[in-house]
């Protein structure tokens, strides 16, 4: 084994020296290779981080949300529905929620107006609101300011900003306005007893589907939405978007493979002479192939590491400026958020198959062609 290792070490040594002799050509290849890894890795890191974020956000959401449908549209829950749900076995608690959207012509954006639940961390007082960070930025609000909103009925309402929500929760609270139930009902003119939807918490995850089935039987005009379904949908959607972007980048990948093929087959006269001399002094075809293999491995490894690190910085420190519009979607009050850095084994393996594998396949034939040249033919050029 040590003899084998020494041999490989000598080959790597030689390869490095030979790479260094043709700095410009190899740096060009390395640059393009790194760029390809960077592009693909950015997409994957960003997609993965978004999926994790969605899962983290949904972890504490209620297991079941019940909406009422009228003519296929989401409608208010009329009085009595909460009672009719009665006591379904397995349901820990049920609660009506009040929330809605409000279009603010001042900033040309929609707010999500909501009544915090009874066990909310920061209850609001009547006449006061708590607002999300993005909205506070858009309207230039600070705690203590007054904000006037014209309700859909035409009446003007004034609220005092009690607090601005923490930046940490911005992903979900960017456009949020929290107010009391009384204020909400007055603002949107929703009479007592009506709710936007109902949330249920179910202790046993295996019971959730049974509970949903019972709800559909008890309230046929309702639509139960399960947390798992939402999660699954996010997972599929983000995976799908990531896949689409990767397929779009397939053109770039193909161009890269052709580029690598060209680079590997366009041997300069000097390189040809070098291979000729090596073979003349006793190297076998297999040795030349091994040397070229190490060359490819060194270039691939360097490009992979550089590209991946650059993508990591791009996604987690520079907010993936390049892909934001495609992968995130957009809105006027878009949350500013930093993604939690996460590196994933599957992702690295996938990326490896996307970059190193095509590169190696594309360069094998030209390398072989160079390696089988007869020494005299090679030296004569």
């Amino acid at each position, binding site marked *: 084994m040590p003899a084998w290792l020494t041999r490989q070490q000598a080959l790597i040594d030689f390869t490095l020296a030979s790479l260094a002799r043709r700095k410009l050509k190899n740096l060009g290849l390395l640059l393009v290779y790194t760029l390809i890894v960077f592009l693909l890795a950015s997409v994957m890191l960003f997609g993965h981080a978004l999926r994790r974020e969605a899962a983290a956000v949904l972890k504490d959401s209620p297991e079941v949300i019940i909406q009422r449908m009228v003519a296929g549209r989401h409608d208010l829950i009329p009085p009595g529905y909460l009672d009719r749900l009665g006591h379904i076995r397995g349901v820990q608690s049920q609660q009506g929620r009040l929330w809605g959207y409000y279009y603010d012509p001042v900033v040309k954006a929609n707010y999500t107006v909501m009544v915090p639940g009874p066990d909310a961390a920061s209850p609001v007082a009547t006449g006061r609101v708590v607002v999300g960070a993005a909205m506070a930025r858009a309207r230039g609000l600070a705690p203590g300011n007054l904000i006037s909103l014209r309700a859909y009925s035409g009446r003007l309402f004034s609220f005092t900003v009690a607090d601005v929500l923490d930046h940490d929760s911005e992903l979900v609270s960017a456009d949020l306005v929290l107010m009391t139930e009384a204020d909400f009902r007055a603002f949107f003119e929703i009479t007592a007893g009506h709710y936007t939807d109902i949330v249920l918490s179910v202790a046993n995850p295996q019971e959730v589907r049974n509970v949903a089935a019972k709800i559909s039987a008890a309230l046929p005009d309702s639509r139960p939405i399960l947390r798992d379904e939402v999660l*699954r949908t996010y997972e599929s959607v983000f995976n799908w978007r990531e*896949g689409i972007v*990767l397929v779009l980048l397939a053109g770039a990948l193909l161009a890269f493979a052709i580029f690598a093929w060209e680079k590997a087959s366009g041997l300069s006269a000097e390189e040809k002479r070098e291979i000729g001399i090596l073979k003349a002094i006793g190297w076998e075809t*297999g040795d030349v192939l091994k040397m070229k293999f190490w060359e490819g491995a060194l270039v691939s490894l360097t490009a992979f590491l550089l590209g991946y690190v650059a993508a990591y910085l791009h996604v987690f420190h520079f907010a993936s400026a390049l892909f934001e519009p495609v992968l995130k979607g957009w809105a006027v009050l878009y949350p500013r958020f930093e993604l939690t850095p996460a590196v994933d084994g599957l992702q690295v393996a996938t990326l*490896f*198959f*996307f970059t190193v594998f095509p590169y190696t396949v594309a360069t*094998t034939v030209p390398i072989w062609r160079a390696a089988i040249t007869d020494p005299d033919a090679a030296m004569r050029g």
Partner: protein
Amino acid sequence: MLFQPAIIALLLASGTGLALLAAAAPFAWELIRRWDIASGSERQLRLERRTYLMSTLLTLVFASQLLALLLFVFNADRMAVMFVGAMCAVGALNVDPFGFPALASQIAVFFLAAIWLVINHVDSRASDYPLVRVKYALLLAILPVVALTFTLQLEYFLNLRADVITSCCGSLFSSEARSLGGDAAALPARPAMVLFYGTLAAAVATALVHVRSGRAAWLVAGSAAAAFVAALAGIVSFVSLYVYEHPHHHCPFCILKPDYDYQGYWLYLPLFTAAAAGLAVGALRPFAGIPSLAGILPAISRRLAWFAAGGFTACAAVATFMVLRSRLILIGG
């Protein structure tokens, strides 16, 4: 559901592999018919030069197939989130009837690829390429399996629709199920343990005998195959129970999940390596009589036997560690 990064990567790998193998097939056929090491003809020279390209490309393809198995299982496990009722790879593979056949044929490709790589290695060490015909005949034999794997994977991934209700591991590996997995789970813990440790010990022992004496190569391969099957049965029928600390959870895939700290990889990686090495010892046995391999083959065969012994020991040790660390009491009290 083709637009998933890992699925695209898997299909890319097996599609490229299949294309390269198919492109190599006519050459393999020509080589099997015309190869004559004693000849100095132009054709022979061309064939010899071309074998360099072919063995490099095929090494690449087969090495990628070894990795692809890992990626396939990893991906199946990850996809489980997208299917109602699926909790791990079993659920994801069960969504479609092609799931488990795709896995099985990927495993078959894994072992065939490993054997091919070993034969290629031995052949390239000898001066007169004594195994070149065998190598390319084997290539022609592997080609349909790779094609089958690609087709099955394509069918599987094409037919996947998120949200189909699937039986999760709980129902497939519970004792009532009548499938192969169910049979293994129905094995009571004590005989399963005896079988597990017995066959693994036998495999290690024969491998060590081969290391010392160079004999019993067939036995090494046979016992490696038996140990592979017994170890899988053992993992389903008792090791998994100890890992989950649950007397009825038999799933061999959940141990690969992050919830269980990816412990399964510590079991499966040495097991698959050891089984492949053991099978390769047997695969090399028919060529022991070739004169130009006399100085090469026994050493390689012994090293493979070392790998097999080491891998099976590691697998048994990891399983024992899992059992001892667990708070589940399955036998006695």
